[in-house]
């Protein structure tokens, strides 16, 4: 049980990533000071380790994460948790565009707002946003869940596959083939568990369920055949 601190002031991000990629020999927590918006902090971690980033992270923080529990005590740049496989990432501030893009597993919690294209092409991870999400969120999301406790922008869930979205606030517009569906008991139970895991207090009964109407799954040869 030991803790290491890496101060990135004036140092390349490799200082922390090399450490995280080498055998950790009992290190359980890695603190990162002065991240100062550097890109790729704690990408590709493959160990159950805690990473505490004290400040604002740049692009792709925690990308490809496996097993690690990463907390960003600040905001995150584009693509936080991109292609995450497992573990968790918590962003205390806001997250920029494409948060959790293509993430396969694990839990991404954003306590502030998320930018555009949050959960784009989601492949199985759970993403919980306590604030709002920008336009085109969950575009082509294939599996997993996106929970939005605030409002959603334009074209939410455009061309959705089998991912499910839960939204508490207003939805500016739904994308093609996304539809509101009634919440089932399984939805309420699953959502309550997910909100508890994310440490957020919201009533599951106040959420709407958005999923694919599946009308784009099959080629409709009769559509627009006017000639």
């Amino acid at each position: 049980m030991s803790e290491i601190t890496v101060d990135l002031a004036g140092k390349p991000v490799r200082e922390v990533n090399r450490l995280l990629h080498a055998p950790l020999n009992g290190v359980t927590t890695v603190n990162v000071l002065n991240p100062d918006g550097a890109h790729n902090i704690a990408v590709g971690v493959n160990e159950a380790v805690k990473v505490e980033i004290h400040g604002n992270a740049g692009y792709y923080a925690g990308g490809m994460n496996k097993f690690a529990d990463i907390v960003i005590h600040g905001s995150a740049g584009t693509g936080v948790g991109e292609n995450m496989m497992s573990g968790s990432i918590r962003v205390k501030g806001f997250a920029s565009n494409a948060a959790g893009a293509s993430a396969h597993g694990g839990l991404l919690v954003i306590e502030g707002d998320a930018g555009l294209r949050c959960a784009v092409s989601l492949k199985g991870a759970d993403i919980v946003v306590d604030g709002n999400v920008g336009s085109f969120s969950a575009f082509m999301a294939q599996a997993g869940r996106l929970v939005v406790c605030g409002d959603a922008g334009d074209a939410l869930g455009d061309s959705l596959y089998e991912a499910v979205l839960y939204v508490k606030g207003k939805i500016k517009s739904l994308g093609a083939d996304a539809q509101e569906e009634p919440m089932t008991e399984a939805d309420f139970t699953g959502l309550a568990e997910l909100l508890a895991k994310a440490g957020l207090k919201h009533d599951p009964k106040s959420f709407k369920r958005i999923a694919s109407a599946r009308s784009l799954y099959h080629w409709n040869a009769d559509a627009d055949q006017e000639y």
Partner: protein
Amino acid sequence: MCGIVGLLVKKPELRPQLGSLMVPMLIGMTERGPDSAGLAVFGTPVHEAHRKINLYSGMTEAGADFNWHGLAHSIRDEFGTVAEIVTSGNHAILTVGSAPAPIKHWIHEHHPKLHILSTGRSMDLYKDIGTPTEVSDRYDFSHLQGTHLVGHTRMATESAVTPDRAHPFTAGEDFCLVHNGSLSNPNGIRRMLEPRGIHFDTDNDTEAACRFLEWRLREGDSLENALQKGFDELDGFFTFLMGTKDELALIRDPFACKPAVVAETDDYVAIASEFRSLAHLPDIKNAHVFEPAPEEMYVWRT
């Protein structure tokens, strides 16, 4: 890719530090824009009847050895006006006491390779090829003073790497624009503006946006109305940061394809493409940091 930075200081005692606060911001955007850099700085306006013409000699044969004082002498003789010149290698600020248009025409006729960077009472403009560090050192950016400035680091994707295609672009007086992104209809904008007598210096897409917005302002639009027409007419990806004599303005395209982040304290408003250019500003830990929303106008006044 390109990098954008902007800084507006809210307290008069910070004006002498404007340049030194900004240089690390510009250098912080080197990875986004290593091929050219530039900035426009706004300070105390010169006398109402005077104009500052910023000139660049890097494309003349003499380059940094250009005979600036000879130029000022010729203009005094030709136009019978005061013509003071402050030089810094291949850059000069010529302050004249008569209408700038005939003087600029004369410069263009007699020194066709001398590039006219800007005209105005408040604004000076510097831009050149080289890394942000090289360009900052070349013109001693850290000693610049003023109320606000707009800077840019360029990674060219759309037109050649030359000093005149670096940003900021300018049109009219005391107006400049920097751009991260690419426009898809710059030629359509040119075809609309050229018959109205608006002249273009380069084939660069950003110049089309700059001249379009300045045209709207000159036609009497408020900055907000001009920017709304910009949203209607300009197609493509953009984060634009603009400077006028007393404002900084920022807009992003509806898809927010190009980044921007803002940090605001009681002392300053700082804008950059990425947080890494803001990380070293004083008291940044207590600043209000936010990401400007797409298709919204942000205007800060001095």
